């Protein structure tokens, strides 16, 4: 997370922990001030970053309820980082107690008591480091070797909260990542060591957070500008509706993928000329979309031109000519108002002269 970035924007980050013991080092280090029960604002040295801390409590219900409440109350929070301890289900996966791992995908068991059943839905978390591992959240504590053995088919790590938080974060469109310290082997034995080591693990998680904050390669809360923002360079010459914005973003992304340089693109389509035209901003937007689309799909532009040439005789009479939107069917929709016998005669003549064979060939891909 690069917190000394040049951006003037303020980003809000929420750290979640199931228990106070896990969060202890953070609350001490950053002198957490309670805003409401189990929710704190941290006093961090990171410029441009507001950091909050939430104690979610244990289990699916508590963590989903508290996180929903916090994110609803603070809609400016754009990212959640979950820290906590988890159990290890498998002894042969290269992980050990006290390791800190980043979670890649989180699964869950089925909610109501079935021994061998899983929730189908999974969540892929934001990842910054490798290696990372999968985790399964369970509705009840894993108290038997048999249950642990079944869950281990899906993931090597287990906790009680993360899936619920991922569900909530996805619903609210907030990024989520998770870092877990492995506290014990989840095979049914209650481990006294868990309590004794809690303070050390909290320190370990804090150290990880601080290192991440100081890393120049990681940026929490930063969003890169959209393709449209880059292309327009702040221009106010266009009036762009939401659907046009989506279309432009998609077209510009496609140009980017094709390796088309935006400056060259502007030059080819006479962008400056488009800007200086005395047209309404919304008409300029339509032109912009048309130019960019044609540049992206020259073949389709050629095809449309060919069809336009073939239907020109009808359009000249004032008819509106529409082809099947996807050009999937050989059909033409004509709309025309006729007044007097002369109009009827001219339309009949134009239809008589319509180059049907050529038109059909174009739509069959034989004359493109």
């Amino acid at each position, binding site marked *: 997370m690069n917190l000394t970035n040049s951006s003037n924007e303020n980003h809000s980050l929420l750290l979640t922990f199931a228990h106070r013991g896990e969060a202890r080092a953070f609350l001490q280090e950053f002198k957490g001030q309670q805003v409401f029960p189990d929710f704190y604002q941290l006093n961090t040295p990171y410029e441009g970053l507001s950091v909050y801390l939430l104690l979610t409590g244990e289990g699916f219900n508590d963590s989903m309820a508290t996180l929903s409440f916090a994110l609803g109350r603070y809609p400016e929070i754009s990212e959640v980082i979950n820290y906590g301890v988890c159990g290890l289900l498998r002894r*042969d*996966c290269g992980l050990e107690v006290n390791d800190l791992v980043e979670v*890649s*995908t989180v*699964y869950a068991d089925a909610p109501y008591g079935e021994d*061998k059943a*899983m*929730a*189908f*839905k*999974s969540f*892929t978390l934001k990842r910054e480091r*490798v*290696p990372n591992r*999968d985790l399964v959240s369970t509705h009840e504590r894993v108290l038997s070797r048999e249950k642990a053995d079944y869950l*281990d*088919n*899906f993931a090597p790590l287990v906790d009680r909260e993360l899936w619920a938080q991922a569900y909530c974060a996805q619903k609210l469109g907030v990024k989520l990542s998770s870092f877990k310290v492995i506290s014990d082997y989840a095979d049914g034995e209650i481990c006294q060591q868990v309590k004794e080591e809690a303070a050390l693990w909290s320190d370990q998680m804090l150290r990880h957070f601080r290192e991440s904050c100081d890393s120049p390669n990681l940026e929490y809360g930063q969003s890169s500008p959209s393709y449209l923002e880059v292309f327009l360079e702040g221009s106010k010459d266009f009036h762009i509706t939401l659907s046009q914005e989506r279309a432009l973003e998609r077209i510009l*992304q*496609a*140009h980017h*993928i*094709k390796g088309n340089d935006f400056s060259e693109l502007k030059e080819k389509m006479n962008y400056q000329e488009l800007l200086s035209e005395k047209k309404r901003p919304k008409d300029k937007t339509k032109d912009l979309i048309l130019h960019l*689309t044609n540049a*992206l*799909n*020259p*073949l*389709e532009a050629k*095809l449309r031109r060919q069809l336009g040439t073939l239907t020109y005789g009808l359009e000249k009479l004032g008819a509106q000519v529409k082809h099947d*939107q*996807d*050009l*999937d*069917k050989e059909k033409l929709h004509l709309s025309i108002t006729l007044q007097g016998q002369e109009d009827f005669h001219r339309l009949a003549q134009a239809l008589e002269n319509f180059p049907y064979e050529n038109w059909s060939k*174009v*739509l*069959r*891909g*034989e004359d*493109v």
Partner: protein
Amino acid sequence: MFSRILIENDVRDYPVTQTILERFPQVATKAIDKVDDIFGRVKKPYLQKRDNLQLFLGKKRGTKIKLAPDAYGLAGEPHYYFIHAYNCIYECEYCYLQGHFQSPDIVLFLNHDEIGEEIEKTINKNGKNPIWFHAGEFSDSLALTHLTGELPFYFELFKKYPQAKLELRTKSANTRELEKLDPLPNVITSFSLSPAHRIRSTDLKTPPLKGRLAAMKRLADRGHALGIHFDPVIHEDNFESCYRELIQEICETLPLDSIQYISIGVVRFTSNVFHQVKKNYPESELLAAEFTSSFDGKIRYPRPFRLWILGKIKDLCLQQGIDEEKIYLCME
């Protein structure tokens, strides 16, 4: 390659199970009751195939053979595919397996004897009429054959039924096991080919064009029958010259009479797979194209383009002297 191997108790004592395990002595193993208890029970992200790919060894239960959709192969004859594996070690950006199984883990079904029984029943029902069987609908037919060793079994089976054809579909160059077998006129190995740069950019982790052509040459020299799939064809500005070069290279490398058929198909996706492509490969060139939702709900190029593309490639084949009756258009 694999993070773990999960083995059904029912196949634990199969000799091939031991052979596979010997190839991966470092990989952890685990005994399970049934593949179906685990595989596909949760949605495992497709790209976990890069760093967390599990291998399942088990028995195929239930349906082992399925009738193939229309235009799957040469028209006028029934086509079936049999299921002896799920998923593939390769990573083609357009692959429909992305949206099919909800897990990238590889499943190898080892009860080929039972699959073979169903094949024989289906052949017998069809009498002496021609009938096709395809391997590789849900996996690559050759990529792992050096591990799985099933090819001799299927060759023996199809030797008994000359009216039945077996197609092994592949993108691999792993023909080692195949080369050990005497060719049969009714067993055809078909290779999916694209221009070399397209394979590099889109067919991730697959052998390069040169490798595939060399494998085809080795098979042709040994008398094996070959098929070619130009599928999926992906349009780009210079696609015509790319395919001209490709077809020329094929014709220079292989004797034309070794090629039994050439199928041509333009890239297409179900909406689910297209969604997965966007998610898994947001920078893919595939996403720069203008697709539409076509007559059957699949995402394709607009009809005039795809017909034009199919026509162009067919023309290029004809120009190189390939018989017209060997060319068919796939899934259109």
